[in-house]
């Protein structure tokens, strides 16, 4: 992996919501353009907090987040929005906006104060809807869509920012198997073909192991293991991370399937 490709770097990151209760204790990792990085770990291991520090909505207590070779803090708010986009766990819209309007909101940083869309903005939003196969719902609201469709709309909105890094927080946690596969395939496609750096927090070890280029395993605010899935998916590592006995089943695809005992 060439060093040039590492667009988002985290070094020795620490964070605490309350003094004396650290959530992150010296986390280091790097996300590279062209790769899907999945962050795994039990509940409360600090995955979502790490993601928030990476997108700048939380200010880390110590350590360093670098984007495009510059400290995250030095980027302007709008400048940051052109580089990093975020997809939340649960798609939600407080008001009944249409899918098209929601995707266009992704252009906020590129539009003027009033957010009046130019032809360019509409073209980018349309392209984002085509890539996520949501163009056919353009005039519907989120409430009228299934969970998988709504999550694809949120990805389209993020893509309308034309980011170089896409951060997703458990995007498949409430989806059925078919939609989980669709979202993972989409993340792989975006990482490899756009190309961008895709970072996904996940609870599904097997899906992450199957699709990710890199895995990071976290526990208690620390990185337990990191690297390509074939190196990380080992019984001893998973036992240490999740505190459960696991057995690995060879599925013939290179990366074994993890079965909790």
């Amino acid at each position: 992996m060439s060093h040039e490709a590492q667009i988002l770097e985290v070094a020795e990151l620490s964070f605490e919501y309350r003094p004396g209760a650290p959530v992150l204790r010296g986390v280091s990792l790097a996300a590279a353009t062209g790769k899907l990085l999945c962050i795994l770990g039990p509940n409360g291991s600090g995955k979502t907090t790490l993601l928030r520090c990476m997108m700048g909505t939380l200010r880390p207590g110590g350590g360093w987040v670098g984007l495009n070779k510059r400290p995250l803090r030095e980027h302007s708010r709008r400048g940051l929005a052109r580089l990093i986009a975020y997809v939340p766990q649960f798609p939600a819209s407080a008001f009944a906006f249409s899918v098209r309007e929601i995707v266009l909101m992704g252009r906020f940083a590129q539009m003027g104060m009033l957010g009046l869309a130019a032809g360019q903005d509409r073209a980018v939003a349309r392209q984002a809807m085509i890539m996520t196969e949501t163009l056919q719902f353009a005039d519907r609201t989120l409430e009228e869509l299934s969970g998988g469709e709504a999550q694809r709309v949120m990805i389209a909105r993020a893509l309308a920012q034309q980011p170089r890094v896409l951060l997703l927080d458990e995007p498949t946690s409430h989806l059925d198997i078919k939609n989980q596969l669709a979202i993972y395939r989409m993340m792989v496609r975006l990482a490899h073909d756009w190309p961008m750096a895709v970072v996904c927090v996940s609870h599904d070890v097997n899906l992450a192991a199957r699709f990710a280029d890199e895995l990071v395993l976290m526990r208690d605010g620390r990185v337990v293991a990191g690297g390509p899935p074939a190196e990380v998916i080992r019984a001893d590592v998973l036992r240490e991370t999740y505190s459960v006995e696991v057995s690995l089943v060879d599925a013939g695809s290179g990366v074994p399937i993890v079965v909790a005992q």
Partner: protein
Amino acid sequence: MADRPAQPAAVTGWMLLLYLLGGVILALAVAGVCSLFGQVDLDQQVWRMRLFHLAAAAAVGAALAAGGAALQGLLKNPLAEPYILGISSGAGVGVLLGLAAGAAWAGLTWATTPVLALAGALLTCAVVYGIAQHRGRLNPYSLILAGVIVNAFNGAVMLSIYLFVDPYRIADFARWAMGNIRYDTSLALLVICGACVLTGWFVLFLRAGALNTLGLGDEVAATTGVAVNRLRIETFVFVGLMTAAAVALAGPVGFLGLIVPHICRMAVGPDHRRLVILAGFAGAIFLMVVDTLCRTVGPAVGVGTVPVGIITALLGGPFFIWLLRRRFAEASA
């Protein structure tokens, strides 16, 4: 939502300009018609009072409706409104203090009342937000509850101010506290309050695009380039400013900021850039019409001029309950 309107056309600059021009023309036309109701063989002085009265009604209606629309967007809660959240009663405490102090000490300027109203409104905003938020996250129901509590507290403060007031003036104060547009509105008060309303309205319009994005969640908005905390503070400050101006002119007029934005949202969809403009004009027109009815129908049935606040509360209370019930039904569906 089952009663969602067909998706309206995308927002363009020309469309917003059209809304603005249409709103101005329509509001002026309604003001013209309203001014003809009641006695017509009046001298110049009385005509002047009637026009000031209509202008005050328009300013109050625009302030509360546009402010309500922005608050609802900010708090992601269609039940939010300056009156329900206690901002109006906070401004009311300020106004009453100003009136009581004005009665006690001569030499206070006309600016005292609006400034105290603003201070009361902003203090209430801060308190309600402080109660309802937890680590920057807002629970919609604790927000309404915080508003109810602060409203009750402000009401008690207002009643305690009455204790210090000349008993002969209490009837006057009580009438104001119902939400009443005074007949002796001075030009100075009208101009300063009107300027506050126009300023607040303009700023909220400029922030409307950011308010749209906020509806997708604070973190989505922040990563899209919205300064979420600044947006919150700005919206509260300028809604507070508009509410203070409205209360200084007419006392706490309730529920208008709930009814008008809701009807506008049903008509043109949820986009705040359209909504803030439209709700402002609709609120102005609504209150001019209601006030004209209060001024003409009341005396006709022998009860004298009816304070507008009574009518908006009579309409708005059931409306609020209906909205609340529907939210519960949606949440459990």
